């Protein structure tokens, strides 16, 4: 069993036009920078990207918007990206806006093998249109379905060659659920180590979920809003 790939170019080489891809991260926090750059290089098009946000104009998923490789975005908040707005208004880009908790849970349900579930988020709003509504204990809920993807691409702080991943601070965000939900999951890590170097007590995502792993490089880790103590 070998899960270790040389780099992002090799790990993403078989992603084809029209693929459905989940990309971990929240804003620019914990995004798979190396794989996004590789997708730009491979120039795969017509992608459906599932990601909480769409990056900013010149970083993160914004890079794939610049090159018009994305056909559809499934996100909860896309307000930081002017290019996105332009492509949306011109009809070049299709968008499904999903409440953030529903997006996270639909991905988690895919990871758990559960096809659908009920949540109160969005009841009585336009996102409820066409969805099954059910009452439990006097409260109204919408049926939401699990969200699956051909590929999940995440970035972790540390990973071992067996695929076990450890995340740092707030970078768990959507990444741990996506890592468990992909039909094929690709993990790029800041530190690739040997099996045994990660304490099993500390594993956030177990190796079974990870199909490909590689040592990432040149992380920019750009900060969207640099706020400091006044």
């Amino acid at each position: 069993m070998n899960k270790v790939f040389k780099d992002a170019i090799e790990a993403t080489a078989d992603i084809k036009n029209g693929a459905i891809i989940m990309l971990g991260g929240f804003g620019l926090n914990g995004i798979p920078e190396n794989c996004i750059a590789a997708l730009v290089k491979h120039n795969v098009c017509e992608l459906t990207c599932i990601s909480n946000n769409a990056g900013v104009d010149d970083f993160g998923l914004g890079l794939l918007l610049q090159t018009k490789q994305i056909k559809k975005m499934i996100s909860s908040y896309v307000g930081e990206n002017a290019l996105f707005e332009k492509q949306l208004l011109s009809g070049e880009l299709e968008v499904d806006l999903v409440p953030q908790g529903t997006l996270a849970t639909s991905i988690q349900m895919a990871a758990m093998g559960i096809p659908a579930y009920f949540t109160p988020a969005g009841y009585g709003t336009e996102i409820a249109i066409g969805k099954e509504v059910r009452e439990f204990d006097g409260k109204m809920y919408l049926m939401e379905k699990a969200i699956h993807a051909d590929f999940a691409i995440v970035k972790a702080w540390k990973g071992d060659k067996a695929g076990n991943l450890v995340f740092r601070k707030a970078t768990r965000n959507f990444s741990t659920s996506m890592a468990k939900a992909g039909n094929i999951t690709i993990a790029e890590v800041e530190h690739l180590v040997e099996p045994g170097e990660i304490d099993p007590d500390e594993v956030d995502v177990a190796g079974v979920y990870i199909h490909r792993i590689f040592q990432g490089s040149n992380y920019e880790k750009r900060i969207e809003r640099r706020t400091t103590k006044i």
Partner: protein
Amino acid sequence: MALDKFGIAKRIAKELKDGMYVNLGIGIPTLVANYIPQDITVVFQSENGILGMGPYPEEAAIDADLINAGKETVTVINGGAFFDSAESFGMIRAGKIDLTVLGAMEVSDQGDIANWKIPGKMVKGMGGAMDLVASAKNIIVAMMHTNPKGESKLLPKCSLPLTGVGCVKKVVTELAVLTITPNGFQLLERAPGVSVEEIIAKTAGKLIVPDFVPEMVIE
């Protein structure tokens, strides 16, 4: 005189009680964290996956791996914890978060809220707002009483696409504190020096006005 945004935040801070777990939205709600009474402890949740969110960091302590739901660099307090967004919203849905404070474009006298979309203009997305308003035990809206055109934002019915129905418990504006009752908005307090008549004139939704409306007490 009408309050400024800091005054609104100060008034909302008085709603915080010792031991509360609180989620603050972007804008005026974020300012509430600056005015927590000294004698109580509250814990802030950030829905991307932080419990025990602390203040902004010193320049030297900035960590790109640690941001809040507003994408700002933050810190974590002693006793804080990290988790993923799915768990974070599990906490919210399961009622573990005691209070949510968020902004709004419109609130109806039935407690409906609209804050995520203006048709025909840019749609930024709802983020976590729909999940928060559908599940939080207590929801306080922090907003201005009228929009920039001078039109009331407290309406009989929201005109913008809804974020949630029948969920808002209290509204704090630069003019007043109002609670939502089955019979509409009830005026609880007025800003120092603001007349009941001005509040009535600027509230389009159904408004219950008691005989005596005290002034807000803001230090």
